[in-house]
């Protein structure tokens, strides 16, 4: 398996939806390709940083009108 194919499969690998054969080939590739491991680590870092973007701010005008609805229920 070549790296160019690997990078297209790594998301399915992460999602654990590859069939056993492809998964085994990918495992074998990663075991001897530090570059693709680095690529995977960068992908995982991107997701980790994404999860820290979560913001819970709702515009105060929106919140105010929703609170009015809540009080009037």
């Amino acid at each position, binding site marked *: 398996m*070549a*790296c*160019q*194919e690997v*990078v*297209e499969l*790594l*998301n*399915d*690998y*992460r*999602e*654990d*939806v590859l069939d056993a054969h492809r998964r085994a080939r990918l495992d074998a590739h*990663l075991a001897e*390709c*530090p*570059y*693709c*491991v*680095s*690529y*995977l*680590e*960068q*992908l*995982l*870092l*991107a*997701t*980790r*940083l*994404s*999860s*820290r*973007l*979560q*913001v*819970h*701010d*709702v515009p105060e005008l*929106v*919140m105010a*009108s*929703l*609170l009015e*609805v*809540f*009080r009037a*229920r």
Partner: protein
Amino acid sequence: MTVVDPPSIATVSVIDAGHADRDVVDALLRGDEQQFRALVGRHHRAMVHVAQRYVPSHAVAEEVAQDAWVAVVTSLPRFEGRSSLKTWIFTILVNQARSRGVREHRSVPFSSLGDDGPDEAAVSPDRFNGPDHRWAEHWAQPPRRIDDLPEERLDNDQTRRAVEDAIAALPVNQQRVVWLRDVEGWSAEEVCAALELTEANQRVLLHRARAKVRAALEVALEASLG
């Protein structure tokens, strides 16, 4: 090295979540405004993202999300806990968004996935060796290893900004999926249900989105390393 994401907490603690939901609903029924604020804060942005799948504009999606909250508040006494509170809220939202979309003459089907352009490579082909090379299709310009970098080089204002901007620049379908999966931490099943996507579509959109976010992150990492 662990390469597969751990199972989401949501699937591990379904029973606890049920109790927590009941507590939240009871508090809301007593008129607890702090709980209501917290609940709106937790879900409102995701609701706008989901609603946009069904309606023609962000402004309408915002309206739909607010209308859904009104429906949530008035229906709350009838919440039975047969699904999680989150699932219940988003079911109400999707129903409202769908009927609003019909009124706005929006056809919702999968053709809209075509908006996201042709098949794209996760990594630019010129970073791999050409077909005549002994190591054809292997890395010519590999990504930098990051496991030797301290955490502050990986997670800082620049890298977070790069990720945030990359997500904001994504085509809408990719953006919605990666937002719900990676920012909000939803499961694939939850995303497929809320956005009416097949598993395969969800995966393709997520793959493309994550590849672009990684590419932007790589640029930011290189810049900070000089």
